[in-house]
């Protein structure tokens, strides 16, 4: 387990996160033929950057590869590995239901975006939909907090 403090976020790679990154890197290395070194690059990035950045850079690496160079099974393995590192990032004190909350929220948002893309929406429409879902969800939780803790009308 390693812990780092960057200027942006402090998170730790737990065992599950380390395993997730290894799975993702391995899937890239094994299935990407001549571009297999990308898997090694992901491992290096995972050591340097915290999990949210690792996930973002992992997706950038996936795009860097020719989409045809990865089988659907490998793509799922890479996504699952990155997701595991992300779940683990918030799981230093997490219990099972925290992991369930992360998986549910990610599943919901990804489901909406992926569903719109599958139904033929343009990329920009999907991005707008993503912004809408995340924005509304975040604002709803914010309003719930204000009402629940009687903060409406205060400056806090």
């Amino acid at each position, binding site marked *: 387990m390693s812990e780092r403090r960057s200027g942006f*976020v402090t998170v730790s790679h737990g065992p599950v996160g380390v395993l997730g990154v290894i799975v993702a890197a391995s899937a890239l290395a094994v299935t990407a033929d001549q571009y297999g070194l990308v898997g090694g690059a992901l491992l290096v990035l995972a050591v340097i950057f915290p999990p949210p950045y690792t996930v973002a850079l992992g997706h950038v690496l996936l795009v860097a590869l020719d989409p045809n160079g990865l089988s659907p099974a490998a793509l799922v393995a890479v996504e699952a590995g990155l997701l595991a590192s992300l779940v683990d990032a918030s799981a230093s004190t997490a219990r099972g239901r925290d992991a369930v909350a992360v998986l549910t929220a990610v599943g919901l948002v990804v489901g909406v975006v992926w569903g719109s893309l599958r139904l033929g929406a343009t990329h920009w429409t999907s991005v707008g939909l993503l912004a809408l879902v995340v924005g509304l969800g*975040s604002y709803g939780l914010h309003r719930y907090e204000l009402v629940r803790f009687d903060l409406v009308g205060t400056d806090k």
Partner: protein
Amino acid sequence: MEPSRRYWAIVALVAFLAVGGAAIRRKTLIVGAAVLGGWLLAQQFRFVRGLRSTVGTVDIEQTLSQRTVTAGDSVTVALSVTKPALTTLDLAVTASPPLGTTGGAEPDRTVALGGQETTTAFELSLPVAGEFEFDRPRLSATDALGLFRAVVPVGTAESITVEPRAPRDMHIGEAGDRIATGLGEHTSDQRGSGLEPATVRQYTAGDDVRRIDWKATARLNHPHVREFELETDPTTALFVDHRSAMATGRDGQTKLDYAREVALAFVNSARSLRSRVGLYTVGDAGTTNALSPHSSAEHYRRLRRVLGDLRPIGTDETASRTLRPRRTTGETSRAAASLADDESPFGRTLRPYFDARTSYVHRIADQPLARTVRQQSLQLNDTAWSIIVTDDTNREAIRDAVTVGRRGNGQVMVFLTPSTLFEAGGLADLKAAYEAYASFESFRRSLSSLERVSAFEVGPGRRLSAVLSAQSSRRERATPGRGST
């Protein structure tokens, strides 16, 4: 909820992936953005859930060492917090003292929750008199990833009463003798059915046989009946002078400080007897407060607050400043009234500025005390008690006020602060001081000789004793051998 820089950094990352994916038409990047967006939502949900659980289980106790202090005194505030066993949040609790207090820097009144139970104590000084409220302590919570922070009020609010600094050697009496009865108690001078025995008189035809006092009859050998003092619920009107002349005296021991104590004693007495009391305060240019007689708990509190806030007020400087034409008296009153019930931060911030402003209810250029008593007496019933608390600088006005107050069956009590006992260096020449006091005493006696009028002196006991004992010594020196055999 306050998102941190870390949160916004990840939001920027999501935006970068999403916009980049749309720009180069790659679904993978958009899905990556969705993964991170969903993760952020999950973190926010976890934070709110953790905060709800923490607020429900955290145990916070805020205690004040005293509930009532004197202006300028200190109070110790203890904050004890028991951390919930199952929280993933970083917690700190900060006490929220009222505005106007000094001391108690934020680090001193903040408890960072490390262990199970943490306590802090800090000292505050309260220089201003009034009713103050310590808001509920603020719980500051940050999630383990440092993405969100929230400040939530928890626990209970506490209130404290700050009494104005009162004179310590208060003397109320006549010609140097202290009065024995409590302020606010007065005989009705009317006979009837009551509990207080008043007198025994001979039986006359028509008297109820049940009223015969058999013991007195046996003792005096004639039938006698006992009369009782009629119980009444008189209305009391307090007229308190706070003209600029009442500022005379040392800090905390001015004429007004003594006058205020007398008035507060009457309000306290009225509160304990549940009797109706009104308050009219008089400045150099007229009536500054006119609170009609009432007997509710809120009314007594308001009277105490008004008396506590009373400051000497003149005609030119203070009054003209408060009546600057930018805002009329009525506008000020309306603004103060609307702010009184406004619990928003805006209202709470502005209220003290309006409360602190003294404005005239009625402007009276000449003899404001007498005119105020006249104006208000017309609205009181004939049996009302008028309590006039003032000094002896304008004796003619006092006499007029007393005359007006005792119209009908009205009773008047006058409490006068002799100027000679308050003037700086007034006791340097004890002979002159005594002569001034003798003049005052003569005036007081002249008031007391009026029907239904009692007049008393109010002032520092030690200074009065000094004046009187100096005169006694002089007399003894002037008549050597007197009293010796």
